[in-house]
């Protein structure tokens, strides 16, 4: 493995800023790493090698800029984010030839910070899936074991970071799509509070749930990327106009966990949890206690209703959001249509994959007259109760801890035939999106049985990402290192 590739984002940016390596060297090393690992991992839908090389060269010519916090750092973004002049497919055939004429706000912010975009990460089509097997192009593999899935829907982002193809990636999380692949791939993934990061230029799935966040190899790296992308944006009215704290500074404020109270939701630590996941997560919590944190039991009694509420709300919003794909202004158009209506129907039917069509139909059904009150309105009421559950729990503690997923990464093909079975894998992550709270996945070691990474989920109060990052950062230094996959 080329030595530069395995450094963290924070390490490489320091080297770049100090001119001990050039942007061209770092970019070439990343591209070489992609070339050697990509045939196995298949994390990327497109590669912008020439653009990256050209930008690296011009950055080097101008010299390091201290005002640009990610100067010269090569990064990858999920293919759900608009990138000006480069393909943005959302993992779907319907957007196969789509080339946006603008950058998503988060992409523009990374570029303004001096980052170099290497490529676009694979994903489940329109972010609908938990394994990245639902990509219309190809399935991404888990760098730890190529026979296993990387998680989803940001599986390409998870795999590219774990495989050291890049120093960090952006993912999106509607029901766990950052945290699950981070957990399965043994990296850090952070879903910010709803409203913390602008979604302008992100192809919407569930608009009241979606958030964009960093996926990195260290906690400090995640803080650095969040620092760049967080904050209000005039182009997204749901982005909250509130000051962005100094996340990196917050990390150095703490060496131990004295005074921090961790809530352990009974519902997250009970039956259905695989022993290896329970063991690794419990060990991490014990370690937190040894470092001064206090652990208290809490209840999230409505957790058992979260999946039902979530899949009603998410599919309802998806059916509405995906109505825009009609073959008129962009995307795939069926060739043989005779009328306008026929063109809509054929373009959508030929352009969308099976899972997307299933969710559009489900969403249309729960919104249709006669069922709206029983399903959609009911789910929105339960959603409020779930949020109240979290608010009550978080009065007794600063953060909540539990596993990200009941199991480690499963085998390719294990979940493809039964959608409901796959939805149930999201049990621990989706409530966070319903409540709009921040959540992250921290690698806490390898499972004893499968040898695959285990992620501890940390959930915080709204807009208190700093406290989650502090806990994660202290734990990261004190739990056995998960390490990197051997590829």
């Amino acid at each position: 493995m080329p030595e530069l590739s395995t450094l963290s984002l924070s390490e490489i940016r320091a080297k770049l800023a100090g001119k001990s390596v050039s942007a061209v060297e770092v970019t070439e090393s990343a591209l070489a790493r992609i070339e050697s690992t990509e045939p196995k991992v298949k994390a990327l839908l497109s590669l912008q090698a020439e653009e990256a090389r050209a930008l690296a060269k011009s950055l080097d010519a101008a010299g390091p800029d201290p005002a640009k916090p990610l100067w010269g750092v090569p990064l990858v973004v999920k293919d759900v984010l608009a990138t000006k002049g480069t393909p943005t497919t959302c993992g779907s055939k319907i957007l196969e030839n789509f080339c946006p004429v603008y950058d998503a706000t988060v992409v523009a912010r990374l570029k303004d910070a001096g980052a170099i975009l290497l490529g676009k990460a694979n994903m489940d089509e329109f972010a609908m899936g938990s394994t990245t097997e639902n990509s219309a192009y190809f399935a991404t593999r888990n760098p730890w074991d190529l026979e296993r899935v990387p998680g989803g829907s940001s599986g390409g982002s998870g795999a590219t970071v774990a495989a050291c193809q890049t120093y960090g990636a952006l993912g999106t999380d509607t029901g766990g799509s950052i945290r699950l692949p981070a957990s399965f791939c043994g990296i850090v993934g952070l879903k910010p509070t709803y409203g913390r990061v602008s979604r302008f230029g992100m192809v919407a799935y569930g608009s009241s749930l979606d958030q964009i966040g960093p996926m990195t190899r260290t906690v400090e790296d995640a803080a650095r990327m969040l620092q760049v992308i967080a904050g209000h944006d005039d182009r997204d009215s749901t982005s909250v106009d509130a000051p962005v704290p100094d996340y990196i500074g917050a990390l150095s404020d703490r060496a131990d966990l004295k005074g921090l109270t961790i809530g352990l939701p009974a519902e997250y630590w009970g039956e259905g949890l695989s022993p290896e996941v329970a063991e690794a997560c419990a060990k991490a919590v014990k370690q937190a206690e040894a470092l001064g944190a206090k652990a208290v039991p809490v209840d999230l009694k409505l957790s058992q209703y979260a999946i039902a509420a979530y899949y009603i709300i998410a599919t309802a919003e998806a059916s509405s959001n995906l109505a825009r794909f009609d073959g008129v202004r962009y995307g795939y158009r069926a060739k043989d249509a005779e009328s306008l209506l026929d063109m809509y129907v054929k373009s959508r039917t030929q352009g969308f994959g099976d899972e997307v069509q299933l969710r559009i139909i489900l969403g249309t059904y729960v919104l249709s007259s006669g069922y709206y009150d029983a399903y959609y309105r009911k789910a929105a009421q339960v959603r409020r109760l779930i949020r109240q559950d979290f608010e009550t729990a978080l009065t007794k503690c600063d953060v909540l801890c539990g596993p990200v997923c009941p199991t480690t990464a499963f085998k390719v093909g294990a979940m493809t035939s039964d959608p409901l079975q796959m939805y149930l894998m999201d049990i621990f992550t989706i409530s966070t999106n319903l409540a709009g709270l921040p959540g992250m996945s921290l690698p806490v070691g390898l499972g004893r049985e499968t040898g695959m990474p285990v992620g501890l989920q940390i959930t915080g109060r709204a807009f208190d990402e700093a406290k989650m990052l502090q806990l994660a950062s202290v734990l990261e230094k004190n739990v056995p290192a998960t390490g990197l996959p051997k590829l």
Partner: protein
Amino acid sequence: MKISSEEVAKVARLARLELSQDKIDQYAAQLGDILGYMDKLAELDTASVEPMYTPVDQVSVMREDVVAKDYTREDILKNAPETDGAFFIVPRIV
């Protein structure tokens, strides 16, 4: 079965999708399972609960009404499957 094949076909039409009979039957079975699972929600009494449609308090955000031109017509037409250089072209309507 929670949802019939006829209902699936009807909802698919509303969503502008055209499904083969095999797909309709497959989706009817899958949706039946999913909707059956969702009936869990009926266990909760929510009569007095205000629905929560978004985590952010939805206030209309006002801004100055300023003319801005971010994209050219050419930009906007660039991704269209068919244009005449000035407009989007679709199959004949009338």
